[in-house]
C-alpha cells in the first residue's frame, strides 16, 4: 500500500477539514473555555460528529459503523488537532471503541449505538501515576459475589467527570508490575462508591481524579477475559497512542501555519520578519520535522491497520517523533510571534498548551524513545 492517502481517504480528509474548521475552530475552544464549561467540550458538536459518521470509523459495518481503520481515524484527529477542537473523540471513538471491540457483543450493544449517535462519552482510567505507566497497576478488583469490588485511585482521566462509562484497568491477580492478572472493566458513571474530582487542565480540557471505594460491579462489565486484560489494554493503548500522535501532527501543523502567516505580515526594521534568513532557516527545518513526523504517524497507522507486528515499534516512533516536532513547532511559534505570542488574544499560546497536554497523554517522547530501545532489546 503506498504511503499516502488514497482517494477515499482524501475525500474524508476534505470533508473533515471543512466540517471541523467550520464547527470546531479555535473560536469554539475559546467559547467553551471562557464560559468555564464544566465538561470542557460541547455535546452538540459531539452529536454532529455522530451525524457525520466520524464516531463509527472503527466500528464494523454490521454494527452500524464505517468499518474503517486508524488511517481514517487519524484524518479526523489531525483536524481536531489543527483546530484545537475540544472533543471526546479520541477517548471515546478511538481508544474506548478499540477496547470494546475486544469485548463482548453485549457490551458493544450497550455502548456502541450511543457512541455512534454522539450521545455517549467514554473515559479511560488507566493511569495511577503522574507519568504514563500503564504496566504498573495497583488498583484492585477483588471477586465479590458474582462480580467484583473495585478499590484504588486513578488519575488523568480525561472527560472522567462527564463520561457515561469509564474503562478501568484493575488488578484481579498478580503484583503491580505483572502482565497477567490485569482486567478491564466498563464502569457506568452512576455506580456507588466512585468519587470523581474533576480538574481543569492547562489546555482547558477537564480531567478527573477518581477514587474507587468498594465499587461493586457485575461480571458483565468485564471487557475481554478476566486476568487477560493486558491484551485489551494494549489494543486500547495502540489506538490511543497513534491517535494522540495524529492529533499532535494537527497541532504542530496548525501552529506552524499560523506562525508562517504571522511572519509574512509582521514588520520590524522596515521589513517583514519572514524575510530574515535566521527565521527562514528555522521555519524550513521545522517544516522538515513536521513532514517527517507526519509520515511516521501515517506509517504507524498503516502498520496497525495491517495488523503488522512492527506496528508496536512504529507507534512508539510516531509518538516520540511527533512529540518532539510539535513541541518545536509551538516553541518556535511563540518565540516568532514575539510579545503578542504571550497574549491570550493570539492563538499560538493555545497550541502550546494543547501540545503540552497531548504530549503527556499516552506517554511522552521520553517514554516512547525508551520503549523503542526496549523493543530493540538494548
Amino acid at each position, binding site marked *: 500500500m503506498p504511503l499516502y492517502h488514497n482517494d477515499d481517504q482524501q475525500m474524508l480528509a476534505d470533508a473533515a477539514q471543512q466540517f471541523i474548521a467550520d464547527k470546531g475552530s479555535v473560536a469554539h475552544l475559546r467559547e467553551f473555555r471562557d464560559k468555564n464549561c464544566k465538561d470542557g467540550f460541547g455535546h452538540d458538536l459531539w452529536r454532529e460528529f455522530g451525524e457525520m459518521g466520524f464516531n463509527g470509523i472503527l466500528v464494523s459495518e454490521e454494527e452500524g459503523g464505517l468499518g474503517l481503520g486508524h488511517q481514517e481515524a487519524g484524518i479526523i484527529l489531525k483536524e481536531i488537532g489543527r483546530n484545537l477542537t475540544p472533543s471526546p473523540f479520541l477517548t471515546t471513538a478511538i481508544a474506548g471503541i478499540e477496547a470494546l471491540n475486544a469485548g463482548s457483543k453485549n457490551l458493544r450493544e450497550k455502548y456502541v449505538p450511543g457512541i455512534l449517535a454522539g450521545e455517549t462519552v467514554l473515559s479511560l482510567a488507566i493511569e495511577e501515576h503522574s507519568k504514563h505507566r500503564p504496566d504498573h497497576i495497583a488498583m484492585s478488583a477483588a471477586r465479590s459475589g458474582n462480580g467484583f469490588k473495585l478499590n484504588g485511585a486513578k488519575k488523568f482521566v480525561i472527560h472522567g467527570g462527564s463520561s457515561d462509562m469509564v474503562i478501568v484497568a484493575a488488578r484481579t491477580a498478580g503484583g503491580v508490575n505483572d502482565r497477567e492478572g490485569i482486567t478491564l472493566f466498563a464502569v457506568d458513571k452512576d455506580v456507588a462508591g466512585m468519587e470523581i474530582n474533576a480538574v481543569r487542565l492547562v489546555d482547558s480540557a477537564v480531567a478527573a481524579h477518581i477514587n474507587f471505594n468498594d465499587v461493586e460491579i457485575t461480571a458483565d462489565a468485564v471487557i475481554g477475559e478476566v486476568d487477560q486484560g493486558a491484551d485489551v489494554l494494549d489494543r486500547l493503548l495502540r489506538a490511543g497512542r497513534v491517535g494522540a500522535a495524529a492529533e499532535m501532527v494537527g497541532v504542530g501543523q496548525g501552529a506552524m501555519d499560523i506562525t508562517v502567516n504571522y511572519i509574512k505580515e509582521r514588520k520590524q*526594521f522596515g521589513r517583514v520578519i519572514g524575510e530574515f534568513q535566521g527565521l527562514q532557516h528555522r521555519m524550513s527545518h521545522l517544516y522538515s520535522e513536521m513532514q517527517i513526523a507526519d509520515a511516521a504517524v501515517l506509517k504507524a497507522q498503516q502498520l496497525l491497520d495491517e495488523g503488522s507486528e512492527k506496528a508496536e515499534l512504529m507507534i512508539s516512533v510516531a509518538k516520540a517523533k511527533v512529540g518532539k516536532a510539535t513541541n518545536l513547532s509551538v516553541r518556535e511559534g511563540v518565540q516568532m510571534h514575539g510579545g503578542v505570542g504571550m497574549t491570550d488574544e493570539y492563538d499560538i499560546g493555545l497550541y502550546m498548551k494543547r501540545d503540552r497536554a497531548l504530549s503527556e497523554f499516552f506517554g*511522552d517522547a521520553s517514554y516512547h524513545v525508551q520503549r523503542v530501545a526496549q523493543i530493540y532489546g538494548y
Partner: protein
Amino acid sequence: MSDLENFRAETRAWLEANCPAEMRLPIKGEDDMCWGGRNFKFKNDAQKLWLDTMAQRGWTVPDWPKEYGGGGLNPAETKILKQEMASLKCRSPLSSFGIWMLGPALLHFGTEEQKKHYLPQIARGEIRWCQGYSEPGSGSDLVSLQTYGEDKGDHWVVNGQKVWTSYADKADWIFCLVRTDKNDKYKGISFLLFDMESEGVSTKPIKLISGNSPFCETFFDDVKVPKDQIVGELNRGWDVAKYLLGHEREMISGGGLSADMPSIGAAFAEVAELDPILRAEFAAFDVETLAFRAMSEKFMDELKAGKGHPAQPNMMKYAGTELNKKRHELIMAAGGSDALEWESEASNHGAKPRGWLRTKANSIEGGTSEIMLNVISKRILDLPGA
C-alpha cells in the same frame, strides 16, 4: 577583625534584630512582594514595617549615595549585605522598577534637582514606576516608535500608545520614550517622566497565556508633560534608553544566577529512576546549568573589574533565558499529568504550568534572543552587515 568583618557582624546582628519573622518566609509569587507606591496595599504590618525600617537606613538602595536616600555602601559592603540577607532569608524590602531601572538612569543622566526630588521617593517606595518603551508597531525595532510629544513652549503634549507597560494599571509614574523630532530616527527621541494620573492617560491590562495580566496597553491622549520632566538632553533619550536596556539585560542575564538553581535531576530523582531517557536529559541539563553558573560568575567578576566585552550582557541574556525556558520544559516533563492542572488546589492553582508559560517571555522581553544574536554577530564577531 577587619572593617568588612566588623560590618558583616554588625549587619547580621541588625538584620536579626530588625527583620520581622514574616519577612523571612519564602515569597510565594509577585503578589506577595512589596511594590510600594501611592495605592499599594501592604499584605501585613510586617511588610510595611520592614520597608520603613530598611528605607530609613537607606538599605532599600544600599549602594546609592546617602543624600539621595541610599545607604552609601561601597561594593564590598553591598555584597556583604546581600549575602547576609540571603543567609538569614530576609526578603527584599521593596521590588521596584524605580530602583532597578529608572534610578541608575537618573543617577547617570539626571540633574541635581531631579536626583534630589525623585531618588529619595523611589528609595522610600513612595512612587511606583512603569516603563513606556514598546509600541504595537515597534517590538525589537524600538527606535521606530511613534508616540509624539508636540512642543508647546513650557510643556509637551504627548499622544500615542505604548504596550507591554509592566503594571501600568498599578503604577504612579511612567518613564517613557517619546518622539520629539520626527526627522531623525535615533536622535529624535526624548526620555520623559510623568504622572500616570495626568489627564489623558489610560491603561488596559493585557491577558497573557499564563492567565495573568502583569502588562498593559497604555494610551496617551493630549497628555501635558512639563519641560523639567525630561531626563538627559532633548532628542537624546535614546542614549538614556540604551543605558537602561544594557542595565536591564545585565539584570535579566544575572537574574537566573542569584536564584539558586539546584540539580534538576536530584530534584526529580524518582522520575529519573523510572525514565532513563528523561534522566539523561536531566543530567545534560545539570551540566548546562553548572557551566552557565560558572559563566555568570565570570561575567559578574569581569563586570566588577571593568573587564569583558561590553556586548557580553547580550550573550548572557541569550544563553540565560534559553536555559531557563528549557529548565521549565523539564519541570513540566517531570511533573507529568500533575503539572497539567491549571486550577486545582493540589497544583497551587497551576503554579507549574503558569510559571512555565511565563518563562516563554524570557527570550522576548528586554530584547529577543534573535536581537541578542544579531548584536553578538555585529559587536563581538564583527560580521559584516549584521
